[in-house]
């Protein structure tokens, strides 16, 4: 009996002794951690993906509390998480614009020609080495899905030969941007509906030969834009998103449909009659002659002319216009 008893008692006794000593020590040597660090650590996604540039979620929580990192530093959690962290830190959450990756190419199999049939390994980088890929346009999406494999969130898929980002799932982690050999994936604010989907810097004729939907540098969008938000660089239209107001006029004007906008998302201005005092300020600022009405009379929006640029909303002194 003793043969079994003594070892058990001894080890048990030692364990209890050390346990007590440690329990005492943990009280005596307790380090006070800022409770906010623990709280923030709890709301962070906890995947330790390193997307923020810190070693992990613990390190980021620490940096946020210290003030080294912004409350919006976590690219995965987005604005929802930023709001939670802001509440914990007791600061106002800046309306962090959610960014998403966008593939700047719309030359799918119907629009762009194939130079040759590619039988190599299914990887854009490999295809890139063979005369810049099989697509007739050397700037366009190879469509072999290297970005799809790189995406940890299943947010990018190849549809008819061109990679397309699922903006709901995209967390702006930039992993696809890093692997794309064509450099055609860009991070843009999600609220900006209008986009130029071409990277081809060649002259119009060359572009037309290789792709039906390439930017041919006709400059019609520049004329259509009432806000000077489109500039031309290297035979390519470029939207200055700080000026773009989502009026989608450029997309309407683009003859090759290179500029894409989802017209379903187009909003219309609506005047709240109770608040309108008939000052005509909105009418003066409307670039599209979509507002009518006399001085001191109620104004009216002409819905078929309104393009949803929301300039009148910003100018109305009585906040009598809203976007619907």
């Amino acid at each position, binding site marked *: 009996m003793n043969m079994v008893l*003594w070892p058990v008692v*001894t080890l048990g006794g*030692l364990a209890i002794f*050390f346990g007590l000593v440690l329990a005492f020590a*943990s009280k005596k040597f307790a*380090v006070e951690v800022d409770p906010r660090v623990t709280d923030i650590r709890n709301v962070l996604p906890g995947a330790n993906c390193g997307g923020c540039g810190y070693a992990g979620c613990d390190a980021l929580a620490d940096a946020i509390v210290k003030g080294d990192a912004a409350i919006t530093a976590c690219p995965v959690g987005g604005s929802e998480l930023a709001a939670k962290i802001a509440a914990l830190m007791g600061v106002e959450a800046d309306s962090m614009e959610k960014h998403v990756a966008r593939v700047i190419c719309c030359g799918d199999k119907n629009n762009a020609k194939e130079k040759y049939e590619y039988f190599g390994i299914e990887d854009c980088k490999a295809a890139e080495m063979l005369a810049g890929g099989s697509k007739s346009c050397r700037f366009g999406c190879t469509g072999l899905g290297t970005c799809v494999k790189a995406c940890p969130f299943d947010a990018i898929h190849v549809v008819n030969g061109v990679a397309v980002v699922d903006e709901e799932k995209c967390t702006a982690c930039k992993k696809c941007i890093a692997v794309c050999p064509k450099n055609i994936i860009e991070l843009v604010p999600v609220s900006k509906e209008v986009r130029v989907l071409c990277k081809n810097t060649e002259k119009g004729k060359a572009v037309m030969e290789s792709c039906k939907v390439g930017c041919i540098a006709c400059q019609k969008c520049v004329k259509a834009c009432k806000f000077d938000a489109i500039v031309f660089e290297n035979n390519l239209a470029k939207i200055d998103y700080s000026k773009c107001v989502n009026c989608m006029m450029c997309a309407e004007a683009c003859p090759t449909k290179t500029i894409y906008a989802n017209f379903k998302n187009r909003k219309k201005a609506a005047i709240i009659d109770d608040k309108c005092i008939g000052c005509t300020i909105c009418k003066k600022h409307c670039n599209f002659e979509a507002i009518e009405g006399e001085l001191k009379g109620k104004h009216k929006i002409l819905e078929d002319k309104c393009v949803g640029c929301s300039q009148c909303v910003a100018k109305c002194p009585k906040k009598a216009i809203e976007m619907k």
Partner: protein
Amino acid sequence: MTLLLLLVSTVFINNFVLSRFLGICPFLGVSKKVETAIGMSVAVTFVMGLASVMSWLVQYFVLVPLHIEYMQTIAFILVIAGLVQFVEMVIKKTSPTLYQALGVYLPLITTNCAVLGVAILNIQSSYNLITTLFNGIYGGISFTVAIVLFAGVRERLETAPIPKALEGFPIAMIAASLFSIAFLGFGGLFSKFF
């Protein structure tokens, strides 16, 4: 005099890392920078000294009277694990910078076989309490000598022109083996001079 001889013997001739091959894990893991290497060795030396004494006490006041010496390994592991936890708390409280520098390696001292090795060697060599204490500390010093010298070498390796295939760990392994061979050269020290 005996203690002095023991020092030379433990640090150079029977170096824990380079001749007995104990504690290789932190030797390779924490030897990238001299600064962290020193921090780690201080922690190891401290734990080794304490663990030697504690395990000696456990051996002669608990295990031997109860005739359960065969429980030595598991009992010592318990002692060392408890001690490391304790040291971790103390360091966290007193020196947050050192705590950050040691990071994951501090709990790893628990599984550092050099600590268990020194505790068992003390018993096997039937040292008395004083010699045990010193042997523990000397063991730590021998670990310090090995890891700090090695960290110095690795810092130089960072900038040295090394073939691509050997960059990083491979060259560190080669350096470690050369180190070990060099230390084995102390082997004949006593028979020649004393």
